[in-house]
């Protein structure tokens, strides 16, 4: 059994869905790093990494940072080594759905979050993105709760974040969710003050 097969077999046995998804992201990222690409976990799988508790995206979305994007052939060959292709850019790896997207979009100027060698979208950008999808086209309280959780984690200093950069990203023309962010920060800070 190759080292890669052994890792995949171990991941298949993983019974914590959160950890399993991250380990799949790690092994897929590693294979793309070997050809000079820089994968970044984005979207719901990144929320899962940060929130750790109440959100499981069930899949892994990967974008690429930097000038080197995998060619379609490289992409397909790597995914065939790792699992079962389910269509262009989509594959099942150790029971987890993996989507390979294009170049990463981020407005934040902070460094990507890293866990070992695994890269994830910055918390500052992720919060702004979640606020955007929770308020456009209309306010959605259920979606807003995802943003609220991420903001609470930052407010409680459980995630390293640059607050100034968070406000700048939220206020930027890319997102324009600064008012929503400030309201949620005040709400979360108020709750913490009242609860302590």
């Amino acid at each position, binding site marked *: 059994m190759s080292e890669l097969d052994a890792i995949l077999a171990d991941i298949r046995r993983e019974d914590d869905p959160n950890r399993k998804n991250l380990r799949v992201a*790690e092994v897929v990222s590693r294979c793309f790093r070997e050809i000079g690409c820089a994968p970044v976990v984005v979207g719901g799988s990144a929320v899962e990494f940060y929130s750790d508790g109440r959100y499981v995206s069930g899949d892994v979305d990967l974008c690429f940072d930097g000038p080197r994007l995998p060619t379609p052939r490289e992409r397909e060959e790597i995914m065939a080594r790792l699992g079962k292709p389910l269509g262009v850019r989509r594959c099942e790896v150790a029971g987890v*759905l993996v989507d390979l997207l294009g170049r990463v979009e981020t407005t934040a100027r902070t460094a990507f979050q*890293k866990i070992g060698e695994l890269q994830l979208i910055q918390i500052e950008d992720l919060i702004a993105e979640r606020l955007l999808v929770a308020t456009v086209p209309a306010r959605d309280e259920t*979606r807003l709760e995802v943003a609220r959780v991420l903001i609470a*984690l930052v407010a409680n*200093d*459980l995630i390293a974040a640059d607050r100034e950069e968070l406000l700048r990203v939220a206020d930027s023309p890319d997102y324009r969710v600064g008012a929503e962010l400030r309201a949620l920060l005040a709400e979360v800070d108020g709750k913490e003050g009242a609860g302590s």
Partner: protein
Amino acid sequence: MSAEKPVRLERATTWEEWERGRASRRAICDRITAGRELRRFSGDPRKDELLRRLNSGGRGLRFGPIAPRASPE
């Protein structure tokens, strides 16, 4: 309540630190959501169907208790 100091997730962290901070982060999540699960949103019915199939082994997308640590290596 645990007297353990909450573990902050630094910008560059290790798997071990990520594991050590899980309970702290989960406690905050639970406080905000009152223990409810957050729903996922793909907006893509085909993707949702694939996910339903992949997660149809009984566990689905639900959270259970944190499982014992397995080596990421």
